[in-house]
């Protein structure tokens, strides 16, 4: 059992390796009495091979959790570990390096650098790693090939569709071969066809040594994930494995007492 009182989705005996671990994490903005408790004693383990969705309504704390999981922010209290490294004890430089090495980000709005080509955008993730120019090009090209965009390496974001831009962003996320891919509403700005294509890519990225974590409002997307973490009011209220799920997420969510639909 973890500190939220929920059952551990990876019981002892599992062969999965723990990659990320949040232990009793608080994130509080401002000071009492007007302090906002964005995360309120959250504990969460992410293992290799996890294909996980974090769901919850606006204000539930999932973006804050994403920031902390992505080492983009530090908790007010609690511990965050990546492998065996305590993130809260790292300075900005070391935390940046850990982030660059261990986490691949995919955002709803793609966040491609507009003046760079697809290849340039993917290569940006490989800068300052003492790689030669040709090594960077080869790896970036391979990543673009993985998402089916090897033919469009010279195109700038403005010359590509939303789906293509998101695939470039995925290529950028995987080019460093990270431990975890952290995606924030990756299909939120895409039509159904492109959303399916992107989800198919994520499914293919799932591997023994890597975790894929999606933050989403979309329960249909969440239904496709192996593990779903539900959040409300800064707490994790459910952490389910699909294999053990007996009802649809929609029903589970309504029964969890949220009283409102996901937004």
């Amino acid at each position: 059992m973890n500190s939220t009182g929920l059952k551990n989705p990876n019981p002892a005996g599992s062969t999965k390796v723990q990659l990320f671990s949040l232990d009793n994490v608080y994130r509080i903005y401002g000071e009492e009495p007007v302090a906002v408790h964005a995360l309120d004693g959250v504990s969460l383990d992410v293992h290799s091979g996890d294909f996980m969705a974090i769901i919850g309504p606006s204000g539930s704390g999932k973006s804050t959790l994403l920031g902390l999981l992505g080492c983009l922010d530090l908790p007010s209290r609690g511990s965050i570990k990546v492998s065996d490294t305590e993130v809260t004890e790292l300075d900005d430089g070391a935390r940046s390096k850990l982030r660059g090495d261990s986490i691949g980000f995919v955002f709803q709005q793609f966040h491609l650098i507009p003046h760079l080509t697809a290849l340039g955008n993917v290569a940006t993730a490989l800068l300052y790693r003492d790689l030669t120019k040709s090594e960077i090009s080869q790896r970036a090209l391979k990543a673009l090939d993985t998402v089916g965009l090897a033919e469009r390496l010279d195109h700038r974001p403005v010359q590509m569709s939303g789906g293509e831009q998101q695939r470039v962003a995925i290529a950028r996320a995987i080019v460093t071969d990270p431990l975890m891919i952290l995606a924030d509403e990756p299909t939120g700005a895409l039509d159904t066809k492109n959303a399916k294509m992107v989800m198919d890519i994520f499914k293919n990225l799932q591997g023994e040594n890597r975790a894929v974590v999606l933050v989403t409002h979309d329960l249909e997307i969440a239904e496709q994930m192996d593990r779903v973490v539900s959040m409300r009011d800064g707490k994790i209220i459910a952490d389910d494995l699909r294999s053990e799920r007996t009802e649809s997420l929609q029903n589970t969510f309504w029964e969890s007492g949220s009283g409102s639909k996901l937004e």
Partner: protein
Amino acid sequence: MNWFREILSVAISGLTARKARTLLIMLGPVLGAAGIVAAVGLNESAKGDVRQTLERLGTNLIVASADGSFSAGQAPTLPEDAVERVKNVSTVDRVAGITEIGSLTVHPSQGGKDFFRTIPVPVLTSDQNLLNVLDAQMLYGRFINGADEDNIFRSAVIGQDLANSYQYLPGEVRTIDVDGKTYGIVGVLENVDLVPKLDTAVIIPKSAAEEDFDVEQKPTTLYVRATEGNVDSTADALAMAINLGGDEAVTVAVPSDLLEAQGAVDTTLRNILFLMGGLALLVGGVGIANVMSISVIQRSGEIGIRRALGHTKQTIALQFVLEALFVGVLGGIVGVVTGVSVIYLVSSILGWIATLNIPLFLVAGGMALIVSVIAGLYPAWKAARLEPLETLRLG
């Protein structure tokens, strides 16, 4: 090494991606450096012709003249052996004397007598080394030489202005009437900037002057060249060296002093212009800080994603400082080139001699660079402090 090459390339691509904005940012250092170079350069170019003349003439010529009242129609004179006395001064390089002969009338012997009578023409004798001491040149013909002196020839050398007044033609065989005696013109002396009275003078051999006009061979003026760096001390010593405590009054002057004063660059004006250029640069710096700060806000998404991809705060800051550095280097170079172009353009229009002050280019370019980098520090600091969570708009 790869790291530095990569950050350079990121900075350059950041600048080239937004050419219009980069040009706007660059305007500051360009105008500042151009302002400094042009303002100071034009000030110096305006004096360039005078200073060029000075360079040609040298500033070590000293004129020692007899001072006192005229007596018996003769100008006041120096001691007969004044030249020898002056030669004894150790800082004197070379010396020549002239003797002005008063009360003589001069006009061309061939026609136009009445027309030319009104022009005052000094008649004088001189040492044969006068040209050498004055660094003067003959326009045509030759100067008075030993043969003229030994044979008491009635030869005459006339100044360039007098030759023009008498409508003397080069190579023409002409004579000149000196107080009723006819002298043959053997040469025309080119204008001597430091001794303008020679430009309208007639120079005749000492022997002929003595024969025709019964002139005492006492010099009235000595032209002295001092050795390098000893002009003032030589000038101070000359009066005593000439009269040896006697009663001949001596006036000493350094004719280049006046020219030097005319040609001297007005340091106050130059400093003011330099300051104005510096102010332009400062305003440019504020412009850089302003435009780059806006650029940081506009590029916050790019900064956020770079941070998410593992780029450190220092890398982000350095990227922006390097962008400012490139703006400074390029702006400084373009500014100096623009300033030089302005100097050449204005000088050619106004007929000045374009004077380029190379060290100033380095100062102006360097200032443009420093101001740009300093102006880039604040936006760079702002960029580094941007929190990726705030710029990436998660959830």
